[in-house]
């Protein structure tokens, strides 16, 4: 295959991925704009928002959960400590079940309690807080909620320049993987899609499985191309091998 055809193939792959996940980022953008609005109103009124002010986010979260092409387990906003007048830490989160019912998630944020859910240390929160940029974390096994293999999409929320939390959505890799594989199967050689940590999201070959970690020394035998996600400084990597994908290993 010529270099040019190769590049075209790659560009199409990247664009298909962005189509598949584009409406997730769109939905998160709507949530974070809505939150910025609530914070601005509270500031104008001379105070901090209260828990009851967040109820209006439900419609936008439910719209995200309704995205048909993917299985989205949960969506909502996760707030930085001290942002809400009547709570320290707080998640305003809705879960979608397989029968399309939606219910709010209530978690324990008492720091002294056994079941304290400390999201401040979770990568989908801490990375966004530390960089101020969107993040796609995972896949990881979600032991606190769905007991599924999850890819978490999150974007920062700001009040002016101040970080006030993240808007996030949990997508099961199971629903995302077929979309990714469809693209990978168009590459003639073995190809693997990796997240920023080098973990496999999808592969067109049984040589690699979702969840495997590809270490830098292993990647050195492959040709790597970067897939920018949604024009954000967030990347996945496609790793292409030398051998045709249908050769048995």
């Amino acid at each position: 295959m010529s270099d040019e055809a190769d590049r075209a193939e790659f560009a199409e792959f990247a664009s298909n991925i962005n189509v598949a996940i584009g409406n997730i980022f769109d939905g998160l953008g709507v949530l974070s704009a809505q939150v910025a609005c609530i914070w601005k109103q509270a500031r104008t009124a001379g105070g901090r928002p209260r828990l009851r002010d967040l109820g209006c986010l439900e419609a936008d979260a439910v719209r995200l959960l309704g995205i048909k092409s993917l299985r989205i387990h949960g969506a909502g906003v996760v707030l930085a400590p001290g942002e809400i007048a009547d709570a320290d830490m707080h998640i305003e989160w809705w879960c979608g079940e397989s029968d399309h019912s939606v219910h709010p998630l209530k978690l324990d944020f008492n720091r002294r309690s056994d079941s304290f859910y400390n999201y401040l240390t979770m990568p989908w929160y801490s990375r966004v807080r530390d960089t101020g940029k969107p993040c796609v974390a995972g896949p990881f096994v979600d032991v606190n909620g769905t007991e599924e293999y999850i890819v978490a999409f999150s974007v920062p929320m700001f009040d002016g320049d101040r970080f006030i939390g993240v808007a996030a959505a949990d997508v099961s890799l199971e629903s995302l993987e077929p979309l990714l594989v469809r693209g990978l199967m168009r590459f003639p050689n073995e190809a693997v899609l990796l997240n920023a940590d080098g973990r496999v999201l999808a592969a067109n070959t049984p040589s690699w499985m979702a969840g495997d970690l590809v270490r830098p020394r292993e990647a050195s035998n492959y040709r790597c191309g970067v897939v920018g996600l949604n024009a954000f400084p967030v990347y996945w990597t496609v790793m292409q091998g030398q051998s045709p994908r249908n050769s048995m290993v």
Partner: protein
Amino acid sequence: MPATSHLIRFKQEGKTESVIRHLEEMIALGLLAQGEQLPREPILAARLGVAPVTLRDALAVLRTRGVIETRRGRSGGSFICAAPQSSVQALYTRLRGFSALELRDYTDEHVAIAAAAAELAAQRAGPDEHERLQMLIDALGAAGDAREQRQADARFHIEIAVAAQSVRLTHSEVRLQAELGELLWLAYGAEPDIPAMQREHSAIVEAIKANDSALAVALARAHVIKEMRKLTSLRLEQIAQLE
């Protein structure tokens, strides 16, 4: 009556009790939080792999024990209200109810799951997973009472399966911790040697960090076998005392 129908009936009768214990242990382990809403009954039944009627019976018992409450209306559903407490007496009674064969079978299963999880964690865990495992070793040291210690210990073992990137192994480890967790802790006695336990956990994490699958498997296996031996010997003593 064919022999298999006895088998099925026996399993169904035991199911409600094991669903109750599973949910109570999930709460005790902090995997289900106070105030958290349980999924709707058909979904929860499917997730636990039990018949809806079995789940309904189990929820009714949990309701009378004050572990969950059920509210009606638009934002209704079943909510967790309090962590259940099993008395030491009830735990000893449960332990005496195990046959030697059952305990050996549990050991076999627990070794299989823990070893597979450790092996895959050594291959698949990255810096994030290493950090979480270390956090749970620290949490074991910082725990204020036996319940917090047991929780940190169980969460450590579950986290190895999480680091292995396996939903099924995680599910199995959660179930095993839910079924055996409290009993294992009973076997450690009144004053468990926490630093020794932390050293064993650290050794497993070091093997995982070094990508040394074989060592991680050997250490995880030895750790589980040691715990289960303590439990077996506690059961034998209990039986002797009854004589």
